[in-house]
Structure formats: C-alpha cells, structure tokens
C-alpha cells in the first residue's frame, strides 16, 4: 500500500506557517454540524477535545477512568520543554528542534519535530493563562530547570507534579466545554473497535464498563489519544489501566503501526522488590540535576552506602560522559546502569540497583543559603539542615514517595534506582497532519510515533501531547473535515456499525467461554517476562526469535485456558483486562519482529550485534534510516512498509555526550 507523509514543501522553518496559511477551513455554521470522537483524555485528548469544542465542533470524548482527570499524563513529574529562552542561555526554536532530532538518534521526522519546537512557546502561554501554577522566582517570573540531553535550561515545572498541573488545566478547559454543551463526556467507557464505512473512519464501538453494554457512536472523524503501550512489559511506570487496545483495533482495521520496538527505558525508577510487584514508580529525571549516580568501585561491596568512602565510589556517568555527566539522555543512562549491574557492581538485596545520591547537593545548597543569610559562623549540621530545606522545596513530593515505597529516608541515605519501562516512542504511524493510514482516523500524543525518533528527551512528552491537542489538530483536522461538510451524520443502525458491533460482541463471548484455569494477571506477567528478557534494554537475534515462538505459544494457551469470572452485563474488571492482555500479546509479537528487522542500535533500541568498541549504540544510517510502518495482514502476518527519513538540516552523526 502506498502511503504519503504529506510533508509540506519549502524551507524547514516555513513549512508549518505555509501549511497554516493554505490549509482548508470549515466555516462556523458547518462546524456545528460536524461530529468528532476523541478517545482518551490525557494531555493530548483533553486539549484536543477542549480546543475543538471551543471552535464549535460537536465533540464526544471517552475515557475508561471514572473521570477525565485521572488519565496517566497526571503522573508526569519533571516538566515541559519550551524554547522561550527566558534564561538567556542560548536557547531557540532551532536548538530545541536540533536537540530533539539528535536526542531521538536521527529516527524522527524533521518536519514534525520542527513544528513541535515552533509551537512549544504557545503551550506555556496557554497553560499560564489557564492558571497552571508553574514554579516561579522571587521576581514573579517563571523558573526553569535542566533536563537530560540538553545544555540549556528550558524546562518549565510545578514541583514534581508538572503533569498533574498541566492535565488539570486541560481537564478544566474540557469540563468548561462540557458545561457549554460542546463536548459530551463518556467516562468509564472503553473503545473496543473503530467503524469504517467506504474506507473512512466513521465511528467507534465502546463498552460501558459499568453495565457492560456495547454502544455505537458516529463521528465524522475519530481521534485516538490513548497513550502508549509500555504495559506490554507488565511492569512499567504506566498506570494499571494503560493499554494498547484502541490503537491495536485501529491497526487491525488498516492503520499502520510505526516503529513498535522503540521503547524508552527510564534510568531512574524504584527497583523491583518482589514477585507480587504490580507496577514500578518513576523518580523524575529532574533529580539528575542534583543527584549524582554511583556504584562502589569494588564488586559485591556489601557495606552501607554511607560507609563507602568517596574514593571508593565510581561516578560512572561523570567518568564516561564528562560533557553531560549525570544529564546524559535516558537511553544512555539506562544502558550504563545495566552495564554496571551486569558486571557485578549493583547494590541492594537484588544487586539490580545503583545509587542516586543527594549529599553533595544538600551541602552545596546549604552553603548558598548561608551565604544569603550572611552567616559565617555555622556548623556542618546547620549547612545540612538549610540544604535539605532547599532540596525539599525542589523535590519534596518525590522524596516522600520514595520513602513511602521503600521505607528509607533519601535525605539520609542515597536512593536506590534501576531502569524501568516508561514510554513508547513507537505508535500508530501518522502523516504530517497526524492522520493514520485510515482516512478520518487520527492519532495524537504518545499514541502516535512521530516526534521522538528512537529516544524521547525528558520533558518532551508533555510538550508533544499538548502541541498535538492545542495547536496542531485544530488546523490539520479542518483540512479533512472541509471536504466532509456535505456528509450528514450516519445513523448507527447502518450495517457497518452492526457488523463491527457483532465482531466485538463475538470476541467478548469467546473470551468468556474459554472457562479455563489461569487468570489474566498470570498471562500478563508471563508476557511481560518474555518481553523484558528478550525485547527489553538489550536485544539480539536469537533472543528475539525465541521470544516470537514463546509469545505465539502463550497466545494459544491464553485462548484455551483463560479464566474470567463474572458476567458480561455488569462491572467486570477481569473481562476489561482480558481484552487488553489479548491485544498486548499480539503487539508483543510485532514488537519482536520489528526489533528483529532493525539490525542496528539506535536510541532505546539496542541490538547487541551493533555496538561500538566502547559499548555505545551503533547506528546504521546506510541501511536503517527509515520508519518501519507495519501493515496488518492477518494473524501473525504483517507487511513492512518503509518511510525513508531524509535529514535536510540536522545531519546524522554518531551521537556523542562525552
């Protein structure tokens, strides 16, 4: 199948402006007649639904949680990037664009990334206008901090709760449109399929999770803002409900899946403590501004961290990457931690952890505070007390969270951290307009593949979600809908709606009728283990081939021995989960196939066969400078389509953070 990325011609920095200047428009009277379905209410979905409602479209928004405010964007901690250059430290739209393309290890589409950098400033303005309480300096102006992979301070933040504050901003804008009657909100609803009529997306089948009823909803266009698929690994920093189902159903109805193997493993998470573990918790990357990462120089050193003297500590990131130190990009930091632990230098009971230490930062900040107070006659205890107060203001909620989970006080002893699955750069393939390969079906935010290449930089997910929802889709969707003004609402008794509803209902019946012996949870755990062991931080040909065989066997077992309690016509969380895990199993197979095809290392995708002598990821631009866009052909059968990547501005080089 032919597919076109629809990148506008012209100079990189003029593309978006030119596009906006020439794009088709829909007049206000016609907007009122056009219906749009938005699935998911995180940053991308809530901002899109609110903005489209404001413009006068009739919007229906869906979320599986009990309120749109619960979407997992809420858990993002560290911050949001923008090219404001408020710090006068040399930032610009070009720098943000450049850093993002480089950080993504030259596997992102330049035109999309440039547009993202261009709209980044307007996002901050919009959020402040909504009353998002970003951190401020004493002069009343906005404060910034650094994140990995950059040398400027461009990250805006609200303590360690930036995602929460941005989402509540978008949520309040959304609820305002609900009050005005422009958006109808469906909570505790899960999209289970997309309805396609004459090759165009025309609606969805959703299940009401309270009473189990299937519902048919028409839309002139359908927007999937359903997040990432990190939960394919079972353990991840995603919320328990995060799933791939909406995106996967779209994929099976013709939407290509882009770069499924591009997974971000975040370097600083609280380590696994036991088999019962249900999820992992992130400790924000912002902590690497002030925390120093180290392991003992001696293998199997069992002394307490505080008893290990300075000269016996290996600050391995500072040693290996002096230019960026502890602020190297996430993929680099994660692999470095794994390397030390694999070599036997890990700490804690499982030996799968490294230290993140704030002692030096506490003393440094303490001395600055003393300086401010003009007090020279102080004890070390005073310095530490003052320093702790500063660290508490910056990261208090994160330190509290760490202590609740581990029972240890990180002000007194270093945190133990280890990498964990956090974000998926891959997702539904979209063109410049965020449209998938199915007409009228769009993907926004983490659900699409477009902006982060093979590795996302910190504080860029929030930026992308809001860019897509507030500032991109309001323009690009009009270009499609302008040709739909003569299409009147299709009644949901149309045969295509009935047929799709029947597919959904048959699948639910099949699942319920297995009546086997094993729980959904146990299958999900087994899938996660295969994925983490063989398609995780390091991948090789043999492992990936084994994983595919194991996943296919697991799938067979799932469909013959699954046990789902309860019934289909009342609240049944086990049934909800079963559908999601069934889709994760299929996705897992595709991820392994994609990882197998990409015989290079790039960003978060590390093929052991492709590394430099120093163990760094080795890209192969000659053979792999493309987006993998997988087309579903049938069970365990996909065709690989390639979108070649051309770099006009940021010429690919070996990424170096040394």
């Amino acid at each position: 199948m032919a597919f076109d990325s629809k990148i506008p011609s012209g100079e990189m920095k003029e593309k978006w402006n030119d596009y906006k200047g020439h794009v088709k428009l829909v007049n206000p009277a016609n907007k009122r007649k056009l219906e749009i379905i938005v699935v998911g209410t995180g940053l991308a979905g809530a901002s899109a639904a609110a903005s489209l409602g404001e413009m006068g479209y009739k919007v229906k928004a869906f979320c599986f949680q009990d309120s749109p405010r619960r979407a997992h964007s809420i858990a993002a901690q560290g911050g949001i990037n923008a090219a404001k250059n408020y710090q006068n430290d040399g930032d610009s739209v070009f720098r943000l664009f450049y850093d993002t393309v480089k950080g993504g290890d030259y596997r992102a589409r330049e035109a999309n990334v440039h547009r993202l950098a261009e709209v980044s400033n307007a996002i901050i303005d919009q959020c402040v206008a909504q009353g998002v309480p970003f951190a401020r300096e004493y002069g009343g102006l906005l404060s910034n901090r650094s994140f990995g992979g950059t040398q400027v301070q461009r990250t805006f933040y609200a303590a360690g709760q930036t995602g929460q504050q941005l989402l509540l901003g978008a949520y309040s804008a959304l609820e305002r449109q609900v009050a005005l009657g422009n958006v109808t909100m469906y909570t505790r609803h899960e999209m289970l399929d997309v309805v396609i009529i004459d090759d165009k997306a025309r609606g969805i089948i959703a299940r009401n999770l309270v009473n189990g009823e299937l519902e048919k909803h028409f839309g002139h266009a359908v927007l999937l803002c359903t997040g990432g698929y990190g939960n394919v690994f079972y353990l991840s920093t995603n919320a328990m409900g995060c799933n791939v189902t909406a995106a996967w159903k779209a994929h099976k109805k013709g939407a290509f899946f882009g770069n499924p193997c591009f997974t971000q493993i975040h370097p600083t998470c609280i380590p696994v403590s036991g088999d019962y573990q249900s999820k992992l918790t992130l400790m924000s990357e912002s902590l690497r501004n002030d925390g120093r990462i180290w392991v003992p120089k001696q293998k199997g050193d069992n002394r307490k961290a505080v008893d290990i003297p300075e000269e016996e500590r290996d600050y391995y990131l500072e040693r290996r990457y002096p230019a960026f130190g502890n602020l190297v990009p996430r993929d680099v930091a994660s692999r470095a931690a794994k390397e030390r632990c694999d070599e036997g230098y890990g700490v804690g009971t499982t030996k799968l952890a490294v230290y993140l230490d704030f002692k030096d930062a506490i003393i440094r900040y303490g001395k600055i505070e003393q300086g401010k107070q003009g007090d020279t006659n102080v004890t070390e205890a005073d310095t530490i007390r003052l320093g702790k107060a500063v660290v508490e203001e910056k990261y208090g909620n994160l330190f509290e969270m760490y202590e609740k989970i581990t029972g240890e006080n990180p002000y007194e002893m270093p945190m133990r951290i280890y990498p964990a699955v956090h974000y998926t750069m891959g997702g539904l393939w979209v063109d410049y307009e965020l449209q998938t390969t199915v007409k009228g079906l769009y993907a926004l935010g983490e659900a699409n593949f477009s902006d982060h290449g093979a590795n996302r930089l910190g504080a860029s997910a929030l930026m992308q979600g809001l860019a897509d929802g507030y500032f991109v889709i309001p323009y690009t969707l009009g270009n499609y809908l302008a040709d739909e003004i003569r299409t009147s609402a299709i009644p949901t008794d149309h045969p295509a709606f009935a047929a799709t509803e029947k597919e959904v209902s048959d699948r639910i019946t099949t699942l319920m009728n297995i009546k086997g012996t094993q729980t959904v949870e146990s299958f999900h755990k087994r899938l996660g283990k295969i994925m983490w062991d063989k398609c995780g931080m390091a991948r090789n040909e043999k492992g990936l081939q084994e994983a595919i065989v194991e996943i296919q066997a697991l799938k067979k077992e799932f469909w013959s021995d699954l046990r789902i309690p309860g019934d289909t016509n009342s609240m049944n969380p086990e049934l909800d989960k079963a559908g999601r895990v069934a889709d994760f199993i299929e996705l897992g197979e595709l991820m392994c196939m994609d990882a197998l095809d990409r015989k290079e290392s790039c960003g978060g995708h590390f093929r052991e066969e492709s590394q430099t002598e120093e163990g760094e990821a080795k890209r192969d631009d000659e053979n792999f400078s493309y987006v993998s866009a997988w087309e579903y052909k049938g069970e365990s059968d996909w065709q690989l389509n390639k979108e070649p990547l051309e770099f006009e501005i940021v010429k690919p080089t070996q990424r170096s953070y040394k």
Partner: protein
Amino acid sequence: MEHYNMNLTLKVWRQRNNQATGSLETYLVKDISSEMSFLEMFDVLNEQLIVAGDDPIAFDHDCREGICGQCSMHINGRAHGPWTKNTTCQLHMRAFQDGDTIVVEPWRSKAFPVIKDLVVDRSAFDRVIQAGGYISVNTGNAVDANSLPIDKKDADDAFMAAACIGCGACVAACVNSSAMLFVSAKVSQLALLPQGEPERESRVLNMVAQMDKESFGNCSNTYACEAECPKGISVANIARMNREYLKAGLSTES
C-alpha cells in the same frame, strides 16, 4: 528495612451493584510481605478468589503512585488508611502486623453512590468543576507567559491548593459528607492568581451552588478533611472560600 510476612483477616464490603444490599464479608490472606502495597495485597486476594471460582472484589485504582486520585478505600475507619498524607495505593503492608484484622469499606456519602463493592461514583466532583472550576480562555488567546509576573507566595499557595487529586477522601472523612475542602481548593487556586480575577465572583457562587445541588453536607469545622487529605490541602482554603463567597454575595446583591 526489616521485612516480615503476615497472615491477615480482611472484612471487605461486598455489594453486587447500586441496587443490591451490601454486607461485610470475611477473607483470610496468608504470607503477605511487609513490602507489598495495600493494593498488591488485594491483587493477591483477588487471584485467590478467581482461582477458587469466586467473584473478585471490584476496587478503583489506576496510577498506583498516589497522583491520579482514583483509589478510594476506607480502611479501619479512615479514608486511605492509617498513614497520614497518603493514598490507599501508597499505603504499604508494613503499616500492619501479623494477625491483624482489617476492615475495608467504600467511601460513604450520599453524593458518591456505590457502583460495585468498593467502587463509587464521584462524577459529582466533575459537575462541580463544570460549574466554574476554570478560567475561560480559549486556545490561542494567551499572552506571553512572563508578561504577568505573579508574587511567588501567591503562586506557591495556588500550587498548594492545586495539588488536590480529587479523590474524595475529604468527603469520606467528614461526618457531614461535606465537599468544602475539594471545592475551596479549586476556588482558592484561581482566586489567588490574577488570571482568575475576571470570573472570581461568579466562580465561587456557581461552584458552591452546584456543590449544594449534589447533596454534599455542610461544613461544621471538624477539620477531619484536612487530617485525611492525602495531599495535605489546608482548611485555610475553606476560610478563603467563605470570604470569597461572602464578598461575591454582597457585590452581586448591591
């Protein structure tokens, strides 16, 4: 931390649906690690129930890191359990000892009807926000973010109020099922910021009117809400909302 395992007796509220009569049922769980979270202990129990052919216990949860506000258990008579400034999902089993009996109920409030077992309907909170918990600024209308300096203390106070996760513990903890802490947190956040000024009066009047319509009770200043709030939202917000309400009422009548 020293780890230990424990055997526990759980008394859990079971209710098939909104119409059914519920009751406390007793369950035993064994070898629970002190390092588990409270909800992981529930996962263990649910796996037991499914394997035994019983219906697992329905409960709300999502992020399991204390920020989404979806988890909502009343544990041994306290919203979110024995730890202060904490959500159910962040409660860990080291809060309990071998042999303990733990009673788990849903949020109890007329405004939060039970859907099933421990799951309640909190959509009343969304409707209160719809009544005015926002600043009316359409996308694209904003001026440069730094064109409006905001006093750091006001910004910090607004942030503290905005930290509310909308879980409903304040309502569950209150003898009157009052939602004053939730509503006042949003009113305060927006009243403290200059961006909130144009709608300051209508906002507080409309949100309070909606709160009353949702059949939340009145505030009688017991401060149980603040004590049980997982995010430490202060009752000072309630005082601020009362002032805002009074001022708004006076100026709209004149």
